[in-house]
């Protein structure tokens, strides 16, 4: 509000104020869109889950039959209310930080999901680090170089992107944990136990990123300004890292943002293979058990992650590409 009243006062600083207001408005719009996306995701998930065959109370009761079981369960979980009421109740509880109670685990969803969040974030960040690091090294090292080197890199990338995460994980475990004993399987033994899962999850991403980055780099290297830079006598590697890379990054950053968002799927498999805690396994069992509160919480979380990441991607794009700032 104070920003709005300030806006009508004509001062010398109107220009900067105005642009600050524009930025604020954009930020507000961004937050509103974010909330909208999350609401839409949660609502869609809610509808889909409730239209899946089978009544939740029947599933909760399982194979056991005794008089009054279904009714008792329905009453216990509030499933005897109309679906719309349950939905509104759910929406009402959300802003109060109440995500409900898991049907299958009979515990507050917030604590279940909360406990599993950090291991998955850890894995995702480590995997993204592996992917970006490898992709940068390979792409910068091979773009525009001799044909055999590029061909070799291409094959390696293709293999990395098309290897099933499952297979890769088991292979790495066999060699480096069970065989050589370099990395333990125990997830609470710190960074050492994170290496193999991060490589497993990061390698296919690295392959894809590196492909895109090399192509983009090669296109950049054809640009006239590169000739200018070269003419100044800048060394090849320095030139690539300081000048060409910045221009080649745009498509990679967009792709990378999408990839981090899609990591949850890969995390399910990776966490299973390595017996790691995390959202993956929790999500999988929740979906197969129709554990609605848990699935909804994960959907909300995923939507939130997408919103945050796409915002970050936009900001980074603004920072590296001045043309986007002139509008």
């Amino acid at each position, binding site marked *: 509000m104070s920003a709005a009243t300030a806006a009508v006062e004509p001062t010398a600083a109107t220009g900067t104020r105005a642009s600050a207001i524009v930025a604020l408005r954009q930020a507000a719009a961004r937050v509103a869109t974010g909330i909208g996306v999350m609401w839409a995701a949660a609502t869609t998930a809610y509808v889909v889950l409730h239209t899946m065959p089978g009544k939740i109370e029947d599933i909760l*009761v399982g194979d056991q039959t005794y008089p009054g079981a279904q009714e008792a369960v329905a009453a216990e979980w509030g499933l005897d209310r109309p679906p719309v009421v349950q939905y509104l109740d759910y929406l009402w509880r959300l802003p109060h930080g109440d995500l409900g109670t898991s049907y299958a685990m009979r515990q507050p969803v917030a604590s279940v999901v909360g406990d599993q969040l950090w291991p998955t974030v850890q894995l995702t960040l480590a995997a993204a680090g592996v992917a970006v690091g490898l992709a940068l090294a390979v792409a910068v090292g091979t773009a525009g170089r001799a044909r055999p080197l590029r061909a070799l890199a291409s094959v390696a990338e293709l293999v990395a992107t098309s290897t099933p995460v499952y297979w890769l994980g088991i292979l790495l475990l066999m060699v480096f944990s069970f065989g050589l004993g370099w990395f333990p399987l125990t997830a609470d033994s710190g960074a050492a136990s994170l290496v193999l899962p991060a490589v497993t999850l990061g390698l296919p991403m690295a392959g894809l990123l590196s492909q895109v980055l090399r192509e983009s780099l090669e296109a950049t290297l054809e640009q006239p300004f590169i000739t200018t830079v070269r003419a100044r006598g800048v060394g090849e590697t320095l030139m690539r890292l300081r000048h060409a890379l910045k221009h080649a990054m745009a498509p990679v950053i967009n792709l990378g943002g999408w990839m981090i968002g899609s990591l949850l799927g890969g995390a399910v498999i990776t966490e299973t*293979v390595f017996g790691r805690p995390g959202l993956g396994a929790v999500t999988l069992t929740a979906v197969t058990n129709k554990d609605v509160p848990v699935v909804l919480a994960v959907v909300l979380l995923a939507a939130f992650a997408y919103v945050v990441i796409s915002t970050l991607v936009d900001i980074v794009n603004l920072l590296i590409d001045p043309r986007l700032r002139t509008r």
Partner: protein
Amino acid sequence: MRDPRRLAAVVIAPLLLAGCGPSGAGSRTSASGTSLTWGVTTEPQCFDPHRSTQQNAFIIIRNYVDSLISKKPDGTFAPWLATRWKISKGGTVYTFRLRDDVTFSDGTRFDAKAAKANLDYVADPANAADAASLLVNYQRGTTPDPHTLRVELKKPDSSLLESFSSVKLGFLSPAALKKGDTLCDASPSLVGTGPFTIDGYTRGQSVRFRKNPRYDWPPGYSEHRGPAYLNTVTYRFLPEYSTRAGALSSGQVDAIEGVQPLDVPLFEDAKGFQYRTGPSRQTSFTLNVNYTRGPGADIRVRRALRDGADLDAVVKAVYRGTVSRAWSNIGPDNSDYDASLKGSWGNDPEKANRLLDEAGWTGRDSDGYRTKRGKRLTLEVGYPQPYVRDNRDVLIEALQAELRQNIGLDLDLKINTAGEFTDQKAHGTWTVYPNTLNPLDAGMELRQVLGSTEFLYGNVRGYDRKLDGMIHRALATTDLDKRRPLLARIQRRAVDRAYIVPLFAPHYQIAATDKVHGLGFETQLDSPANNYAIRVGR
């Protein structure tokens, strides 16, 4: 996903384990001798004995939960928290004399009041405890004195002793019971009288137990007395077969359960390891054919399904000889298994074809399946995804291929969701349902899958009244010697009329390093027993 997995297992596992396995030998972790780490297939969704439904949760819960009585391998019962018991003439009143030296690990005394509180809690529909199905005939409990528990029933129930030996009716401290809904969490406040107490839990990774130093009330069949040998026991949740096997062969865990056929040679007769298989008293993995619907309503079609394939060969091919094919849905090690069924059915494609011809399925479609009036002879197998495990889907696919080739029957495997199955169950529209049940009393098992009021036939019209009558009589007969022939007749009728097609007898497989001593199986669960009598060391 299955293909890469199998490729990895087939090509990589033996190669690498053979090549690199021994190099890991120096890093074994079990040298301390007072701790043991298991690699297990399943993470319990719920650690509450009364509420859990997963068989693999009970092998873990057993560490902190004791029962009223115990079951011996010969099928008879032995004392546990009750020293002796008496059944009234009519079979409706059970009187248990309880031990007077038992305490819960929170210090509360275990007495008749605590026992009754557990039964009342389970029987109350408001608590929606899964174990309530074991107490359908429970009228009330009374406590004439602090160490006497009287259980009154609405009608005689021959499965009751089995139920009282079950971990599902094991005891939690009255204080723990009050925690109600939060009981599923493996927190230290989940308190029983068992030889171990819950010490720590990381969801998705592991649960740790610590020895109860005051424990001195083992089940009657136990040879060990006093507290457990081990100080701590850890269960690591490793759902992936190859990961478990690799973790054991590299010494990162001391024992595993759920060894896939491919990995058996790594541990069986292998230096430094031991491999053991448990009994099979639970239901065999069985196709239950809805005998009231579609082509399956015709006994000739059902018998053709039963006999159209060489089940011996199919089971051997899929499980590489590590399990045996089944003849009844009651497990071969169950004292109520009808052994006379062995060799009495199966593998007669010629007769099966004749039956299908007689039944009018004489046409053939372009895929080679039999047809009648233009309709293909199809029996759908609806298998809920959460229950698909240890290659059971592969087994059905193998059977499907053989039946198609031998008799032109389309056994159509459809992996569905728990929700879809629940829906079919609620409307009685399921066609073929493959399942096993947790070990129960044999009469109870037969009632569960064939009884008119139970989960499979509860909503099906036109069930076999004669069979249903036999089941009810069996459950009301408390004289086990009179009951056994009745149970045998039920099994024979179900197989003869091909209501069921038993496939194979599943059992637990454990592998461990040879430093682990005292590994065994609990009769009541068919599973690895708790870690009470286990020692680690040379």
